[in-house]
């Protein structure tokens, strides 16, 4: 096993262990744990192991590692007391625009945005409901003095209470239904695009692009069928549906570290990147050593030089004042390509 894999495994083990401990802690040593959810719990533990392992491996790649360390340094800079206020506001604004609203997808296309937004919020709501339940962190107890009321226990500590037969109650207990509707609507929109768009048709891959949609669809539909079964059909086929639903969910959980779903965890990097660029803009700029125009932050260019060396690239130009090809702007790189070929032809004509 390579060193980085070993490290990643250790990380994954530690994080999984912490989660396991949190589960025992939150459920009062499995006192409040719902035994019916055991398969989900284990799938979650496995998923966390996988995600952490992949995340750790990912962070180990030179460019990611560079952003990771730079990101934290930049973060410390942002915490400077003079700017911390404005940076916090900026951070919140980006968080809302990017993560809550998905503004960048909005600009790519309205229908695309609607599909993603529905799927995303559907999943967020569903995860927010199920994970605490699966881990035994949340428990609903009827009040001792009033059976019409439920009190929510978090980590065993009583918090708010609400009447069972109320709007709040209805909305809470059907939270997964609402999230299913959102996901199904979003998945159908996404599928429609994937089936009709010529560009998507050429580029999409089953495992990468279609399977995640099918999985989400399957989870939502089987989940809804469960609700339908116990609400209107007196539990007809409930056991079978429960197994079916569990299979879809568990498969998805285990699939999280591998496929498209991993972007959920990767995208956290965008915040770091945005601040890295902010800091870069305020700092010294790199001037192209051919045309003299500024084209990036000096920090970015120097970091890239480091990363390229780590990756084994040899873009150094030791005999030239340019020193390293990374000091040449993209426009000049394109121009050089034409010039180089032109020179070859000129020489050939001069000799020929």
């Amino acid at each position, binding site marked *: 096993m390579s060193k980085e894999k070993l490290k990643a495994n250790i990380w994954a083990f530690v994080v999984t262990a912490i989660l396991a401990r949190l589960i025992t802690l939150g459920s009062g040593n499995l006192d409040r744990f719902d035994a019916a959810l055991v398969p989900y719990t284990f799938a979650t533990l496995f998923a966390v192991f996988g995600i952490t392992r992949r995340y750790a491996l990912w962070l180990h790649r030179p*460019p990611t590692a560079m952003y990771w360390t730079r990101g934290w340094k930049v973060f410390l800079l942002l915490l400077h007391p003079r700017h911390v206020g404005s940076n916090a506001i900026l951070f919140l604004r980006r968080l809302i625009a990017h993560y809550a609203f998905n503004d960048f997808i909005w600009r790519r296309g309205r229908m695309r945005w609607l599909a993603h937004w529905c799927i995303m919020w559907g999943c967020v709501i569903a995860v927010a409901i199920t994970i605490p339940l699966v881990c035994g962190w949340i428990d609903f107890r009827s009040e001792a003095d009033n059976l019409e009321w439920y009190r929510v226990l978090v980590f065993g500590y009583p918090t708010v209470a609400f009447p069972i037969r109320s709007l709040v109650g209805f909305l809470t207990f059907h939270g997964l239904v609402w999230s299913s509707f959102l996901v199904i609507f979003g998945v159908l929109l996404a599928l429609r695009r994937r089936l009709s768009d010529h560009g998507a048709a050429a580029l999409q891959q089953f495992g990468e692009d279609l399977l995640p949609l099918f999985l989400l669809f399957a989870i939502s539909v089987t989940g809804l069928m469960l609700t339908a079964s116990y609400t209107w059909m007196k539990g007809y086929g409930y056991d079978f549906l429960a197994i079916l639903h569990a299979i879809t969910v568990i498969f998805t959980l285990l699939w999280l570290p591998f496929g498209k779903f991993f972007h959920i965890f*990767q*995208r956290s990097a965008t915040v770091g*990147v945005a601040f890295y660029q902010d800091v870069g803009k305020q700092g010294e700029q790199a001037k192209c050593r051919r045309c003299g125009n500024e084209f990036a932050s000096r920090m970015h260019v120097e970091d890239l030089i480091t990363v390229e060396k780590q990756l084994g690239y040899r873009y150094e130009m030791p005999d030239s004042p340019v020193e390293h090809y990374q000091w040449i702007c993209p426009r000049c790189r394109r121009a050089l*390509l034409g010039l180089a070929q032109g020179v070859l032809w000129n*020489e050939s004509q001069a000799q020929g």
Partner: protein
Amino acid sequence: MFLLDQNEFFIDPARCIGCQACVQACSECDTHKGHAMIHLEYVDRGQSTQTVPVVCMHCESPTCAEVCPADAIKKTEDGVVQSARKPRCVACNNCVLACPFGVPKMITDFELMMKCDLCYDRTSAGKKPMCATVCPSGALFYGPRPEIDQLRPRSKPMNQFQFGRQTITTKVHMMAPTGPVKAQYLDVTEVMNENGPRQRIALDILSNLYASEDGV
């Protein structure tokens, strides 16, 4: 998919006339509709009408993909380096700055890097890429190797490029002269200080034109 094995992309900037048909046609392709991925640069308009079209060269070992922190740039089995995967791209600009050919484009609005993907919707279905179909000068050519060999007896395709000490091998070929110049690769950084156009108008005619004014 199989056709990709037979057809190859060849570029010949010496033929380019800077008409931008490629740029205009590029944005008509379904994988990047509305966005031209090809670049067309004047080398130095003040000195020359020389222009260079730059498509993605589809490197064997793509620097853009390796410097991507998000692992968003993937190569297909047939060697086509694709645009960043939309879910993953974090718009960090590493690929834009690191690509030795200056190919990727950052679409700031979308927070997404997009690049030439050889019109994958067309080439994967056996059609030519838009740019190479419309190019009026043959600067961009897509077709089987025997065809280009027969059409261009003066040229030989070359797919190794030198940048400093780094050699890059690409799927796309550059047409180089077959003549007396024997180069194994195209040394791009070698011409850092060149700008010499071949044709010049070196006439000292103004001194006659303004003779009276100069008192000559």
